[in-house]
């Protein structure tokens, strides 16, 4: 069983969101980069658990990013995994990224490809489904639970208004969210081991970008809170009914 986990970096969840260069670039000064939480807590940790259960599992990580992402990928390796592959490209287009990951998956003959549900910066929820289609693999999105028995995966996925349990034979692409696994903290042994794990750099294959970012905007500032005295909740109900017209 060969598993490929797609890892992206994202700004720390408390980062200030600001833009430079005429609002065309995210202001990265002072930003702490982390592993995208969905990739780390759910996709990677679940894959590590599968490997812990069955030592024959081979677990590789892939990221499509510039060299500045290597510390983040080392951090991921400190949690677990045998090796990482970095495709040396800096594109932000989901289709371009998916094309690179599909190529790696094809070459490596992986049975399972895990992605996060979405990146918390671009919020695309796109790369996993695109990778699946490029590989002609089935795609199970928004998974909250994953069990593997031989080559049969039993997956719980979120659907509109509930959840569904399904069964699928590998190979398959799965996008992972809360419920798949519990967050872990890397230990000293993991951090030491990660230093010597292979981190291969591959050059990208030719692929198209279908979209481009024109610029960014910040939402308009809120007018400020209207405080209502605690002993007059009737006033709140009145305002919601008459002023905001939401109840």
């Amino acid at each position, binding site marked *: 069983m060969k598993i490929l986990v797609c890892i992206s970096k994202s700004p720390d969840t408390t980062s200030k969101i600001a833009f430079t260069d005429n609002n065309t670039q995210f202001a990265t000064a002072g930003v702490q980069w982390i592993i995208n939480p969905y990739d780390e807590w759910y996709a990677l940790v679940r894959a590590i658990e599968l490997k812990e259960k069955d030592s024959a599992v081979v677990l590789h990580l892939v990221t499509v990013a510039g060299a500045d992402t290597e510390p983040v990928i080392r951090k991921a390796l400190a949690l677990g995994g045998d090796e990482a592959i970095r495709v040396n490209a800096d594109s932000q287009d989901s289709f371009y990224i998916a094309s690179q990951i599909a190529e790696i998956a094809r070459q490596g003959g992986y049975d399972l490809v895990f992605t996060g549900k979405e990146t918390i910066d671009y919020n695309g929820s796109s*790369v996993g489904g695109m990778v699946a289609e490029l590989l002609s693999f089935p795609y199970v999105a928004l998974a909250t639970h994953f069990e593997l028995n031989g080559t049969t995966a039993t997956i719980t996925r979120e659907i509109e208004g509930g959840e569904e349990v399904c069964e699928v034979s590998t190979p398959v692409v799965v996008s992972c969210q809360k419920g798949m696994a519990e967050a872990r903290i890397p230990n000293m042994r993991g951090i030491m081991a990660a230093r010597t794990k292979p981190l291969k750099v591959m050059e990208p294959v030719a692929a198209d970008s279908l*979209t481009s970012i024109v*610029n960014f905007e910040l939402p308009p500032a809120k007018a400020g809170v209207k405080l209502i005295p605690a002993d007059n909740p009737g006033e709140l109900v009145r305002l919601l009914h008459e002023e905001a017209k939401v109840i």
Partner: protein
Amino acid sequence: MSVLIFIDQSEGYIKKASVEALCYGSTLAKQLGMHAEGIVLGSLQDDLPALGQYGVEKIHHVSDPALDHPDAQVFTNVIAQAVQATGAKIIVFSNNADGKTIAPPLSAHLKAALVTGAVALPELANGFVVKKSVFSGKAFANIALNTEIKIITLNANSFPATVLGDATAEIIPFKATIDATKVKIISTNKVKGEVVLSEAEVVVSGGRGLKGPENWGMIEELAKLLGAATACSRPVADAHWRPHHEHVGQTGLAIAPNLYIAIGISGAIQHLAGVNRSKTIVVINKDPEAPFFKAADYGIVGDAFEVLPKIIEEVKKLKA
């Protein structure tokens, strides 16, 4: 040339999100001088022709019950056939579980540019540029779609669902080649009787300030009175006070109701990331310094255990 709108259904009924997608798609079609057409897959109970009031002229229906469960590969192939048959240039989905499952593989299949989480109609002055929510609601990005066929998924509560006319839609049975699915459904569990959180107009949400699961009675009572869904902060779900599917925020569900009432929630940035697109935010917290007040429209500084029962009484009076 047409704008093709994917109409979502669950158990045979059309979803509110689809009505928003229909209004968005048909408004866009009008701007571009195109036809607005819909596509719906699977067995249906609802009155399809009536959807004409949302501006859609024709609806292609593939009624095969094999399509009752959304499957990325099978749906992609069927919709791709409909795109070809209708000459659709723009395909609109809701940015919900179904849209997130199907739009990306369809984008790769057609090599059509995709923007997920659109919050407004495209700007057409300089190419085709769609505003989308990024950084978990903390900013927007304007994205240019640079291919002939384009796919947009629309965020919930971003475009008004309003009656646009009185025409009925023509229903056209669509014959498609349907592949055998590789994903076998074992069981389906839909939350019954409750308002679905992702679609709710009003959400009543509780945090650690409520002290324990036994105190959720007031949250549920207020929610019931307002026809609202209930939600919670992450530590509340992690402690199993409330089910996981109620967790909103950066790592939970992102919602955009008309009214979000946060009770005993501090308003950490990761929580706000999931709720800051709500139209009106009410915060009830005993700490005047709680960061949530900065993101709120209305607030009460006070003890939830004293304030909430009074609010419930006032809402009862209003509804009476």
